[in-house]
């Protein structure tokens, strides 16, 4: 049974790390309705898993694991699931979205992430968020060596992709 203290702590932690939910949702869903639905699913799963959260682990790493697991599952059933789970006024999480006027570079980066498969998308997000190889390995469940190899490939692929479109600073 959740105590008010636990609820308060959870709400505070979610608020402190809201950017993770936002970034995962925008990376795995193209349209806003889907993003909102995914955000609800992530929040529910975070709350369900919260009792097993171990304080010795960083909350952001733990949150990334849950959010990515939900997002990858959500992404796969996108074609078959019911659209828009809850009416706007019943949503568990309301995010006032960031303005859409992204810089061309950032827009291109988002397009590049969009084209990755769900697993590499997770890797790219963690890499761009500057997580260490050890942390990425812990979130994804890979060896550090494997993570290093994959990041090397990801960088090469990014370079190629950006060179193709003639990205300039």
């Amino acid at each position, binding site marked *: 049974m*959740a105590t008010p203290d636990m*609820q308060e702590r959870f*709400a505070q932690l*979610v608020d402190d790390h*809201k*950017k993770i*939910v*936002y*970034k995962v949702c925008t990376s795995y869903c193209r349209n806003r309705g889907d993003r909102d639905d995914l955000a*609800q*699913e992530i*929040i*529910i*799963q975070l709350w*369900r*898993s919260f009792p*097993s959260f171990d304080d010795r682990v960083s909350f952001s790493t*733990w949150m990334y*694991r849950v959010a*990515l*697991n*939900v997002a*990858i*599952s959500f992404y*796969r*059933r996108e074609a*078959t699931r*019911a659209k828009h*789970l809850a009416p706007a006024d*019943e*949503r*568990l*999480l*309301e*995010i006032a*979205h*960031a303005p859409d006027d992204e810089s061309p*570079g*950032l827009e291109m980066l988002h397009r590049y992430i969009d084209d990755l*498969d769900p*697993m*590499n998308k*997770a890797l790219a997000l963690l890499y*761009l*968020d*500057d997580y260490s190889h050890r942390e990425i390995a812990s*979130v*994804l*469940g*890979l060896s550090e060596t*494997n993570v290093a*190899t*994959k990041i090397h490939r990801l*960088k090469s692929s*990014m*370079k190629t992709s*950006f*060179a193709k479109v003639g990205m*300039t*600073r």
Partner: protein
Amino acid sequence: MEHNNADLDDMKARWAAHDRDLDMLVVHLNRHRLFATHVQPAVAALGWLRTSAIVELVFTAPTLIFLGSFTADHIAEMRFALPAFVLGAMALVLTAMLVAQIVVSRRVDYAQPVVAIQKTLATLRTLRIRYVQGILLGGTLAWPLIVIVLLKQFDIDAYAVFGSAYIWANVLAGIAVICAAIWFARTYGERVSGSRLGRYLADVISGSSLQKASRLIATVDAFERD
């Protein structure tokens, strides 16, 4: 190449700047609703699957016991014991698949590493698809056997009432229906996209959802291995 490296560093810098912009996000958590609602049906697919497997097990397990005792009671009459034995074997396989679904679904913890959980979820999906395939296709084939066993419970000899040829013709008709259903699902499955259930069943019967689940396991395996 130097130019590209600069681009890459620039990308990370832009991402970091974007991250700082996100500090301005206003997030409102609907605490009352979250903390008061234990389950939202649409998002509790896993819980639904587990509950559904448990309910199905409640029906399948007694069926298995009934068929086992029926086979033992009629062991001297092979024409009744054999259909019951075949049905019992089918029920045993379905029961094992249900137990496996319950066990695997209990292992899903979204806070575990992504690769492990995605593999577990894909395994669970494969188990479920095979189970539904078994029900749909096996049921089509098994219904004449069910009639034989059930009538015998009321001391009615189905062979005498319908004739052996009629019964076995129905078994063959079941095989034909299965082939036709697979062909139909593969040929016209795309056209039932308006109905979620119709699409799901078409994908299960045609084997396309099983292929997707297998591809998913292969993708996660490759990601883990490379």
